């Protein structure tokens, strides 16, 4: 009973963390794009004249979206039209529970892992859920019963399915190196040292795998260099017929995907909560020194490291979103099928060869 309760609390905490981060990310997106373009960015939203660098902007957006008319076109498939944003949102949000935020802590004689649910095949679970997220797009486009939305959703489905192949292939090499599908164990495998000084992170063992993974994952988030499903300004996308909070849910899904990709990149390739040279008792440096730390401090450092890495990848994705122009559709497909998939296959073969020769 207590175990059940703990799991529930952990799930709620993980979702809260993600939602808060998503809200913050809308602010980061605005501000970072502004700083990149020598502007200031949203800074007028205020509470009692207190502006706080525009940090209230996400709440102002939320209030605006809540009070907007929830317009449903008369020609749409009503039930499915309402269901689509929730499908899209649910399948992305549910992946967050498998992410390990840190090692275990001891609380009242009970060992609690800082991970909501340690799914045995978490890697496959995450890939499957990201794959099911396509249904949100497809159903949304179909239920809108509008040609442009349908075309947008078809583009989206084709893009996501194409890049799913590259995404899966890039992770095969990783699973060969860290022989587990549990995210917690993959992180634990990355604790050791490589050549005596380098942390044994996935990115050092699988540089090519990481490149393919990150590019494919960027395409999965369907943000700007790969935003053919929506193309907000020129090509009309799958949520054309949505407004108000349902549209907001699609938008939130985009930000959640950014966070999930950042979490996955961190967990799989950048050591998750591992801090370089930090062990259970404290730091032990490769040049001989050591620094003893209290267990709670170690946990704080690990959770902090995880968050820092996730923030970095969120920042990087926003930077990429504000740097590159959109790919043309044939370029997108070429890039996915003729570049990333072969590269992923080469990575798998090379990894296999090295493992066999070792």
């Amino acid at each position, binding site marked *: 009973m207590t175990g059940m309760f703990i799991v529930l609390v952990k799930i709620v905490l993980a979702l809260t963390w993600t939602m808060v981060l998503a809200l913050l990310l809308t602010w980061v997106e605005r501000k970072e794009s502004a*700083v990149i373009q*020598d502007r*200031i960015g949203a800074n007028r939203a205020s509470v009692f004249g207190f502006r706080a660098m525009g940090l209230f902007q996400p709440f102002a957006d939320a209030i605006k979206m809540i009070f907007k008319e929830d317009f449903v076109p008369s020609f749409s498939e009503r039930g499915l039209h309402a269901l689509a944003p929730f499908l899209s949102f649910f399948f992305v949000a549910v992946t967050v529970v498998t992410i390990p935020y840190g090692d275990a802590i001891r609380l009242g004689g009970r060992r609690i892992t800082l991970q909501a649910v340690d799914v045995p095949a978490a890697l496959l679970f995450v890939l499957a859920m990201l794959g099911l997220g396509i249904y949100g797009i497809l159903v949304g486009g179909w239920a809108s019963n509008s040609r442009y939305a349908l075309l947008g959703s078809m583009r989206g489905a084709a893009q996501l399915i194409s890049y799913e192949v590259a995404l899966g292939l890039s992770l095969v090499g990783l699973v060969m190196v860290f022989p587990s599908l549990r995210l917690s164990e993959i992180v634990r495998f990355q604790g050791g040292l490589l050549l005596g000084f380098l942390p044994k992170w996935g990115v050092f063992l699988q540089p090519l795998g990481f490149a393919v993974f990150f590019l494919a994952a960027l395409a999965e988030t369907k943000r700007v260099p790969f935003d053919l499903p929506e193309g907000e300004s020129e090509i009309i996308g799958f949520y054309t017929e949505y407004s108000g909070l349902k549209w907001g849910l699609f938008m939130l899904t985009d930000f959640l995907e950014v966070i999930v990709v950042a979490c996955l990149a961190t967990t799989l390739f950048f050591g998750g909560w591992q801090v370089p040279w930090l062990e259970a008792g404290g730091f032990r440096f490769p040049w001989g020194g050591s620094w003893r730390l209290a267990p709670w401090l170690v946990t704080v450092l690990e959770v902090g490291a995880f968050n820092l890495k996730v923030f970095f990848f969120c920042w990087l994705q926003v930077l990429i979103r504000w740097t590159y122009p959109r790919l043309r559709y044939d370029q997108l497909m070429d890039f996915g099928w003729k570049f990333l998939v072969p590269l992923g296959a080469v990575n798998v073969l090379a990894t296999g060869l090295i493992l066999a020769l070792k």
Partner: protein
Amino acid sequence: MKDTWIVIKEILKGAAVTGRHFLANMAFHTLAVFGLKTRRKGAVTIQYPEETKPLAPRHKSLHRLLRRENGQPRCVACMMCATVCPSECIFIEAAETDDPEVQKVPAKFVIDLNRCCFCGFCVEACPVDAIRMDTGEIRLASTDRAGLEYPLEKLL
């Protein structure tokens, strides 16, 4: 294969440009937070209602009519400005006056700013230098059309 390297190089170059802007601007913003004054700012933004850009000395802003020494408008209702106006936004009704030097004065002089295109031709056409566009007033918004029809009293 050669193209691939060019593309990768250009992609990295693009990221370097935005990354450089981000880091440089963040550095200046951070300095500003700590109260350090730098010649360059983190953003080129002018926070408009609170901060305004100085207008150029020859900027064409809201019109004004000049007065004689005795306080009467200089305008002699010659209709030159109304004639030259490409937007046809000046309406003048002339009246006679006893002063033999002047002969005519405007009884009504209305500039319809709804139509005005701020070309400044009226200023150039005026033979007695009665109209100028140097008030520096550029916030001319109004909630109705009548509010933008400036009569003689408002222009003097």
